[in-house]
């Protein structure tokens, strides 16, 4: 079947105007009966228009004022969340710094902690413990950042 027909636009216009086959002139009607392209156009347009009219008729759409009001509420909520996210980040960093400070004070004043540290330093596997300490320090940085990213995404 050819992909184009010289009567295609005429058929399309007639179909879009909702003209029934009986209302078409005899020449076009005879052409549609024999042309695959125009028969497809007429069938597709008729089907889509029928569905459009019926679907639109049954649509129960919300009132425009209500949609506007809900959109405003949502925009305000999202704006408030966005405005708060940098503050949340500062709070997370402050919490992490505070926890680090408390840990440092504990380490500086606790004799049992210091004796444990000395034991670790004299242990044959001390270099491995050094790596562990570095890993823990990295985690102290990574955890607040991950928490901030997770909260930002929510």
């Amino acid at each position, binding site marked *: 079947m050819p992909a184009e027909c010289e009567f295609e636009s005429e058929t399309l216009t007639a179909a879009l105007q909702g003209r029934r086959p009986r209302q078409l002139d005899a020449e076009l009607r005879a052409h549609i009966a024999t042309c695959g392209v125009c028969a497809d156009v007429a*069938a597709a347009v008729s089907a889509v228009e029928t*569905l*459009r009219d019926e679907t*639109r008729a049954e649509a129960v*759409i919300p009132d425009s004022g209500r949609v506007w009001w809900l959109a405003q509420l949502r925009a305000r909520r999202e704006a408030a969340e966005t*405005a708060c996210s940098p503050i949340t980040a500062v709070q997370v960093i402050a919490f992490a710094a505070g926890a680090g400070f408390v840990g440092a004070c504990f380490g500086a004043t606790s004799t049992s902690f210091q004796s444990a540290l000395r034991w670790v330093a004299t242990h044959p596997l001390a270099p491995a413990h050094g790596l562990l300490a570095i890993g823990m320090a990295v985690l102290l940085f990574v955890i607040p950042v991950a928490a901030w990213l997770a909260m930002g995404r929510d």
Partner: protein
Amino acid sequence: MTLADISRLEAIQDAAAEFVMDEEAFRAFYDRNARGVWAYLVRLTGNRNSADDLLQETFYRFLRAAADHDDETHRRNSLYRIATNLARDARRRSLLRPAAWLGGDSIERMPADGAENSRRETPELRRAFLSQAMGLLKPRERAMLWLAYAEGASHREIAKILGLKPASMKPLLFRARRRLAALLGVKS
């Protein structure tokens, strides 16, 4: 009042000002287009409940989109592009959760006695038959046919809404039409 409260209040006051139009213009635009967009979404998703949800989301995203529109047609095309993308996303989600999609208020299914019977009989049966035939098309084909014949969009407009090349519209539309006609039982 803390710094956080002040920031939040300022953001809330600015939120509505970011919309692309004021209330009066929006309500007029919505009244002109909501019914058509809803019908388009029903055909794309095959489900009225989904169309209800996506309709509100479509207009919300349209309001929040930082876009300058030249005229009503441009605005309308933007709206349909947003609706198309939302329907596409919803369909992808439904593929992950098919149970959620099949439930609810799905559009009508053709009775078991087949196409021949449906075409001849009552308007309800005919409608169910047409609906079923449309439902058997690929989502993109459905969208193309709907935009072309229900909304009267040009090939260029359809290409823009669906994110396709304008030059490919004619053969794609031809194939979609051919498939629908075949499903409707038109003998070429």
